[in-house]
């Protein structure tokens, strides 16, 4: 039972992120969608999509994105289960950076 999903997606300029987020938000099991553009090229743009819901179906999201002409580059975060567990910082993370 996926509760939160963070995706790195490549999409054409059209449909816009407004249309994309609306289309995703209408899928079953999805309660909220956030789409942020972080890179724009001449024909395409990279977006980060954060999806939250009670029961997210990854296949239906993948299918909808394909219909809209977008492709998933990577799945950057998944939170599943009865409770959303946030990322935890540990001392090892800090030492790894050094």
């Amino acid at each position, binding site marked *: 039972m996926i509760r939160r999903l963070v995706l790195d997606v490549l999409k*054409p300029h*059209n*449909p816009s992120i407004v249309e994309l987020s609306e289309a995703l938000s209408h899928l079953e099991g999805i309660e909220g969608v956030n789409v942020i553009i972080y890179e724009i*090229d001449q*024909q*395409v743009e990279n977006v980060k999509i954060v999806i939250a819901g009670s029961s997210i179906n990854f296949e239906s999201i993948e299918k909808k994105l394909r219909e809209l*002409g977008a*492709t998933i580059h990577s799945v950057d975060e998944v939170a599943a289960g009865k409770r959303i567990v946030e990322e935890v910082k540990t001392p090892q993370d800090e030492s790894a950076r050094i």
Partner: protein
Amino acid sequence: MSPIARRYFVKNGFDGSMTMLGIIVGSWVVRLEEPEIIVTAGLGACLAMGMSGLFGAYMTERAERTRHLKSLEATMLTDLSGSIISDASEFVSIYAAFVDGTSPILTALISLIPFFLTLNGTFVIWDAYIASFILTLATLFCLGLYLGRIAKENMLLYGAMTLAVGVITVVIVLLLGAI
């Protein structure tokens, strides 16, 4: 109306009116008195312009859209067939073809109305020439007004320009007829 459809509508609508203007003034120069000939020639021209617009615009738009889609696919390294982008490309081609095919038929039929009325005895042929001439120039003027509205500039100036093109054509046809 989308920019593509607007362009096609005005461009081919203008073609339709100008073609009919040529047929009407040319027929008047040779003192043609049979409305059947003008109506038949006019409808033939309508059909030819309609078919030309329909297939010409469809093939041109489809080629351009396919090129754009392939370029997008190459950029995204993915197959976009079955996506709404691919469906939209096909729809725009058909929509542009419809507008391009119907606009010259519409404007040409406006010019032919007085000759249709002559066929059922409402008008005498010489009145039909004058009425058709006025209707055609009015259509050209209206297309100019519409262009002015699109450009958000002086509509009357645009109307006067398209009207001037019509008047110049009439003068040339009359001069050719006088030779």
